[in-house]
């Protein structure tokens, strides 16, 4: 089977500082991978390098495109990469405001991504947007309201609807449940799990919340100082961590 995403030796420096160094892994269709580590461990740098928001100093990010098979997205042209970002990729930001247009209605936020890939029929776009608001449990009556009038949890669900409406194959998520209170987190986790299973999505989730990765991710990478110190099945890494840092990370979780 061809990996959906194959990351080879991705390295990014900020001046003399290491952002991430020599990261390699393959992600297969339908897999969800978590990346954990403390603040500054390089997990967001790595995510942004993979999603095309940052240019790595070296390394390849090979994506199995629909039309042309595996292509290195680092060296492909800017328009091609943008097209991928609008169609086969999705990026869920930690702060919904970074992923939404706050001055546009909820329906407009979802519809905009459809229009970006060529949808023109207003009734179709509106129907699809309303359908997606329902899937992320936002009342259809709110379709014309702006996200500024939404709660944090609703904004996050709207961001997810906006991202998934075009049927992406790979979703990058940066702390998708960060900053939300726990009852809203649980609802969002349930929603994400259902969507991943029903749409056959692959996802890469950066978080520092080990409970989130245990419930969402099949596989886990632990990062420290820009490097991957351990990788494996999520439950194996959490229940039988091998590296000193992973052991420290797991044993530092407070029991409720």
């Amino acid at each position: 089977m061809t990996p959906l995403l194959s990351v080879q030796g991705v390295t990014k420096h900020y001046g003399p500082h290491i952002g991430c160094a020599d990261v390699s892994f393959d992600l297969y269709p339908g897999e969800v991978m978590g990346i954990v580590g403390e603040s500054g461990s390089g997990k967001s740098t790595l995510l942004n390098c993979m999603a095309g928001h940052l240019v790595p100093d070296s390394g390849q990010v090979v994506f199995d495109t629909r039309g042309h098979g595996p292509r290195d997205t680092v060296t492909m042209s800017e328009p091609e990469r943008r097209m991928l970002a609008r169609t086969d990729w999705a990026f869920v930001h930690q702060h919904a405001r970074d992923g939404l247009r706050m001055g546009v209605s909820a329906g407009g936020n979802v519809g905009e991504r459809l229009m970006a890939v060529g949808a023109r029929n207003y009734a179709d776009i509106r129907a699809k947007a309303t359908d997606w608001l329902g899937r992320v449990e936002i009342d259809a009556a709110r379709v014309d309201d702006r996200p500024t009038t939404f709660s944090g949890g609703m904004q996050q669900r709207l961001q997810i609807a906006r991202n998934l409406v075009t049927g992406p194959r790979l979703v990058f998520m940066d702390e998708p449940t960060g900053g939300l209170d726990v009852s809203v987190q649980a609802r969002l986790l349930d929603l994400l799990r259902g969507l991943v299973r029903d749409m056959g999505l692959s996802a890469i989730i950066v978080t520092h919340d080990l409970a989130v990765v245990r419930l969402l991710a099949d596989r886990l990478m632990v990062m420290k100082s820009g490097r991957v110190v351990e990788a494996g099945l999520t439950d194996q890494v959490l229940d039988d961590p091998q590296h000193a840092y992973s052991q420290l990370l797991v044993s530092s979780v407070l029991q409720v």
Partner: protein
Amino acid sequence: MIELHNVSKTFTLHNQGSAVIEVIHGATFAVAPGECVALTGASGAGKSTLMRMIYGNYLTQAGEIRIGGVDIVQAQPREIIALRRDVLGYVSQFLRVVPRVPTLEVVAEPLRALGVPAADAQARAKALLARLNIPERLWSLSPTTFSGGEQQRVNIARGFAHAYPAMLLDEPTASLDAANREVVLSLIEEAKARGAAIIGIFHDEAARARLCDREIDVGRFSPGLAA
């Protein structure tokens, strides 16, 4: 179906003076389809550790663990994920679920992951929950708020939703009343009859005597004795 060859396990505690603890040494045995084998031994002998190694939950340092042709020790994560989805079931002592997900969906999920249509998966889940005496009014609620015994039964229903060819059972009859214990024992007997290879930990001696063809004393794999 399940074969262990010269399997060893050590824990290295990097943050506690790098203590190295060897817990299993040279474990070798096999379980055939339709056979039920009990792991026995004193508390701390490594029964649960060995079971978790077979499931791929704990990393194995040396040896081979073959399940339906896949060596868990060498397998890639995605191979283990596929094996757990299709071949290898595990009923642990604890139910771990996403909060807010209804019991019916929790039980149907292993079938949904295999691509079984929602209606068929739910029908199977309903039958199991009814058989395990979980009141129907609870099916639409999340099991996170259920009693210990109810959670255990939901866990068992989930574990038996798909007819896995190999199953690992960690104290499946603990904290159950007589009637529900009987239901669980018959579920295990049915799994045996359809040809599942089963490894179990049972503190319940009567259950062990009724279900198991053999007992394996895990104590004989403990490194202290081997030396």
